[in-house]
Every structure is written in C-alpha cells, then in structure tokens.
C-alpha cells in the first residue's frame, strides 16, 4: 500500500449527500478480478451519457478537476454496498483523500486499506472547503499534524492512532497480524476447550 503523508492538490466539489457505492462504481464494473483499471468508470452513470460521451456538467469532466486528487462531498459518503471497488476506482482515478461530514462505516474502513485518507470535518468546515473547491483552490493535507488548509483556513481532524500509523507507513496489516500467531492459536485452543462446536460442526 502506498504511504500517505502530505498532499497538495486540486479538490473536486461533489455537493451531494448519501453518495452510495453503486454511484461511485456501478455493478457492471464489479466483474473484474483486478484491483486496477476502474478509474475510467468512477461515477460512471453520472459522469457519462448513455452513448458513452462525457456529461460536460459533471465535475470530473471539467478543468481543473480532471486531475483532482481530493474530493469534497456531502454527508454519509460511501453508503450501501461493501464493494472495495469504490475506493479502488477513486484511487485509480487519482483521488487520495475524501473530505465529508460523515462516511458510511465500511467505505471509511476500506479507504485505509488502499492508502486513501477519509477526513471527517464538521458541516460548517466542509461547507467552507466545498466553496474553496468550487473556486478551484488547492487544498493541502498533512496527515502527521492532522491538518488541512485551503490557503486561508486551517482545520484539524481526528483519526485513530493505529490507522494513522498504517497510512503514514503504508503498512500491510496482514503482516502485522501474522506476527500475533501465538495469541491467535491460544484463542483457538481456548475455543477447543470451552466451545468446541465453534471449531467443529456436525
């Protein structure tokens, strides 16, 4: 996983609430067996017309947002399906940071597994950044100091320590967990003693 430390980039404004993962990447693209290549289908149904032509009014089809690396969105972003294809599509397009007042739990979690930083800010601050994004201003994110700036305002954000550590160092958490082999085995042994039916079904 690519580490996330600092980012200064164009931010695309997407002032819709309850953006679901079906909208981020529709079902017809879920048949892939790869993690990459989904960027061109990101937001497919609202980004392209039925004939495949770009919808000129959609934000990612407009300059300077074609090269956005940050997305500012409405509340409850990423609700619905658990498909990790949603963060894969964002990442493949080039988005490394999403800012919203709230995120759906599974999407939020999936971001961290892919080097994407989801930032939760109060509504009023998201509104400020939405306006900055609409004005085409760059937004700067610094994960180590947990700050975010549009050049005028500086906001701080919260993030879990463990998630921050993994993101800053680009850590593979399977590797970390496998180091706890002894503790996992001990748990399984206690199951065998106390709840054998969980280990062995009929």
């Amino acid at each position, binding site marked *: 996983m690519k580490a996330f430390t600092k980012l200064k980039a164009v931010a695309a404004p997407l002032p819709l609430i*309850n953006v679901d993962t079906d909208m981020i990447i529709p079902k017809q693209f879920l048949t892939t*067996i790869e993690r990459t290549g989904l960027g061109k289908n990101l937001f497919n149904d609202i980004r392209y017309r039925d004939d495949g032509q770009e919808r000129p009014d959609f934000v990612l089809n407009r300059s300077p947002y074609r090269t956005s690396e940050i997305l500012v969105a409405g509340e409850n972003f990423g609700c619905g*399906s658990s498909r990790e294809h949603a963060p894969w599509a964002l990442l493949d397009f080039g988005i490394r940071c999403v800012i919203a007042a709230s995120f759906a*739990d599974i999407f939020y979690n999936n971001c961290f*597994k892919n080097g994407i930083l989801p930032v939760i800010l109060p509504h009023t601050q998201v509104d400020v950044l939405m306006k900055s994004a609409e004005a085409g201003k760059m937004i700067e994110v610094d994960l180590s100091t947990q700050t975010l700036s549009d050049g005028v305002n500086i906001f701080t954000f919260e993030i879990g320590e463990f998630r921050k550590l993994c993101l800053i160092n680009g850590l593979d958490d*399977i590797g970390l*967990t496998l180091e706890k082999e002894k503790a996992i085995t001990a748990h399984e042994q206690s199951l065998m003693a106390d*709840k054998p039916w969980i280990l062995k*079904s*009929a």
Partner: protein
Amino acid sequence: MTTKSPAGPRTLFQKIWDDHVIERAEDGTCLIYIDRHLVHEVTSPQAFEGLRMAGRRVRRTDATLAVVDHNVPTINRNKGIAEADSRLQVETLEKNCKEFGVTLFNMKDKRQGIVHVVGPEQGMTQPGMTIVCGDSHTSTHGAFGALAFGIGTSEVEHVLATQTLIQKPAKNMLIMIEGQTGPGVTAKDMMLAVIGKIGTAGGTGHVIEFAGSAVRALSMEGRMTMCNMSIEAGARAGLVAPDEITFNYIKGRPMAPAEAHWDTAVAYWRTLPSDPGATYDTVVSLAAEDIAPLVTWGTSPQDVLPITAKVPNPADEKDAAKRAAMERALEYMGLTPGESLEDVRIDKVFIGSCTNARIEDLRAAASIIKGRKIASHVQAMIVPGSGLVKEQAEQEGLDKIFLDAGFEWRDAGCSMCLGMNSDRLKPGERCASTSNRNFEGRQGRGGRTHLLSPAMAAAAAITGKLTDVRKMQ
C-alpha cells in the same frame, strides 16, 4: 492488556465482542477472532490473488464457505454463463477454492443460493459467533444473535490469512418495537419504518440490537429481514437476542453443533441476551401499531411512506441539501409531488434477494397471488434465495401458484437486486421490488425501484400498480 469490557451488566453485543478479543491496543483497536467466513465470487478474487502473491494459505478452511450468487444466471442455467466477464469471475472462484481448499457450492449444487440465505440454512450461522463476508448484507446473520458484518476485499484477505480482523468496538443502539403489528404489516415494513425514522446514516458507527415484543414475535425469516437492512440504516450489524425460535431453527441443520455439543452450545447461547440494566449509547422506540404497509418513493431507503400516502413535496423540506436530494430523487423516479402512491403504475415485480427470498417470503407472496393473475402489462419474477428454498416451495406447490398467475419461476441468486447478471431494469422501467436498495441505477441504469414487502409486491403484480395489500387479503 485488558480484554474485557468494564464489569457490570453487558449488552448482547458487548458479550460477543468480549468473547472474541484476542488483543486490545492502547487506542481501543482490537484484534478479534472470526468464527465463520462466507465468500462469494465478486469480492474475493483480489483477496485470493493477494494470498497467492504473498505465499499465504487460508488459515481455517473449515470455517470458510464459498458460494456463487451475484453473477449467476437465474434461467437456462444448463447453458452456462453467457457474459464472459461474469463467467471468468465464477470460474476464478472455483479455481481459488480448489487451490486453497475451501468448500464451494457451485451453480450446479442444489445448496447454492444467496450467501446470506445459505449460511443460516446450512446451520453455519449460530448465536454468539462472529461472522463476516465481503458483502454489506452480512448483517442478516445477526438475526441469530451473531455479530455479523460486511467487510471489504482487503479484509476478506486478512480473514482468509489470519482468521481475525482489526476492529474498534462499535457503539451500541437499542431499537425497541413493542406491541402487535396490524394486518398486512411484515418484518420488512417494520424495518423500513426504522430506516424512515433514523435515516440511512442513523446507525452509522453502531451495532443495532432489535428488541421488544414485536421483534420477539418474528420468525427467524422475519428477524433476518430486519437485520439484513441494518446496513440501510447505516449500521454495520444488527442483532436479535437468541431464544427458543433461534435454537429450533438451527437444530438438525447440516452445520449445526454436533449432537454431543448441542446442550453445551444451547446453555452458552442462553447466556448471551443483554443483561437487565445494560446500557446503550442510543435508544429508539417505535410502536408496532403505528406501522403501516410501507413503500419507498425515492432513491434512498429512508424515502419511505405508508402506501396510503402521497408523493412528498420538496418545497416542504427546509434543509437545502435534503431538498436538493428530494428534487433529484423525484426527477429520477418520474414522480410528481402530491400524486397518490397507490396510483403509481409499475412495469416489473421482483420477489427475491437476501432480504426477502426465504420460504416464508414466498408463502406470503403466494397467499396473495393464489387464484389471481398478474396484470397484463407487468413482468414478474420470483427468484428463490437458494436451491433448497426453491425445492421446498415446489414441494408445497407454491411454484404452481406463481406460474399459474403469470410469474416467472427462476433459479437462486442475487439477480435483479443489483442486476449483475442479465436480470436488469431498462431505463425508465418501474419495479416493485422486495430487495433492499432503491439507489439510482441499482437494478439497471435508469431503472426505478420501489422497495416493499413480498405481500405488497405480490399485490402490485396483480393490479399493475402500487397497492395496499390490506385491500387484497
């Protein structure tokens, strides 16, 4: 290192959590053990590929069950899968299961079906367990008093490799539904009422426990319908305390506890319900008597109203973001404010999905359909949740009732709930659907979805428009 919640009364969720914590870090992040892992073809290929690249194995093949469901055709199955990419995905799962030693119910297996129908049906889902799957509707299994939630593909890989997950404990919400539901009101209506009340982000960060006399009175099928749509209320997991109804459902199923362990298992399961005096972060109450047969009008599951209501007017909404979302939804749905929901004409009916494709759901639909014909302009299909549900329905003669009425009687799979196979809505088509999501494009690009119960869907099929099922009972 502490691994227990503070002493004192604990909730069902806290008990299950405590029993699965292997290690707890300073910031509260825990390594938790996962008892059961369900796998399907869409969210697993990249996970198996990750294992292969790193030279890792599946730690507990005996705790893992794979099934094909999202991509499979529900008709002419003997001809195989026509779409090349869907076929590749299904074949990839077959190859991966063989390579890593995971049991797979493939398309030809009569136990095949929707992963969240199959797990409980096989007795794999049991109280007190942690259960995960790369699918948000894993919340379904919470109906048994198991902590069950959806995960992404990276976490699928993590569970395959380690049988654990790194998680922070969620907050705990109690939803109490007391009283007796009126005629025509089902578990689906109860859950839509909950979502309408708390909203699609209402349960974010929470595990919901459903309680109260109306919930206790539900069958396992009804409890599964409610827990299934916890995710539509924003909660990763829903829970119902296990009781005799739960134990009776599990007993004798192929993967239920062995005879020798049954009494010990039940004795443990009886310790799981929340202790008197246990506290929750959030408590919500509903009266069962207040719930009517419901239907969604918009593009979010929270856009729900009684069937007797009229399409709402965005002008009445004060919040600008919500008003904009309503306007967008009504435009997409092709509905006019003030229009009676009962006047809305439909093109298709879909009875299926992990929400409502179990035997009880099919019985409820059949009871409305029996002796009637579907409207001439409607295409209606029944997609049983599993091959075994289909078999049982045929033994009960339900297939004949559906076929005589003009329904299509399909093979098991996710089908038109998300339209990954060829079962899709065309642009502008309007569907009365027993599934769980009415998002834009969910059932097919430009398709319009109205979520409702199986009985309500059956009523709509007969009249050709959204219909109050109480008039047909």
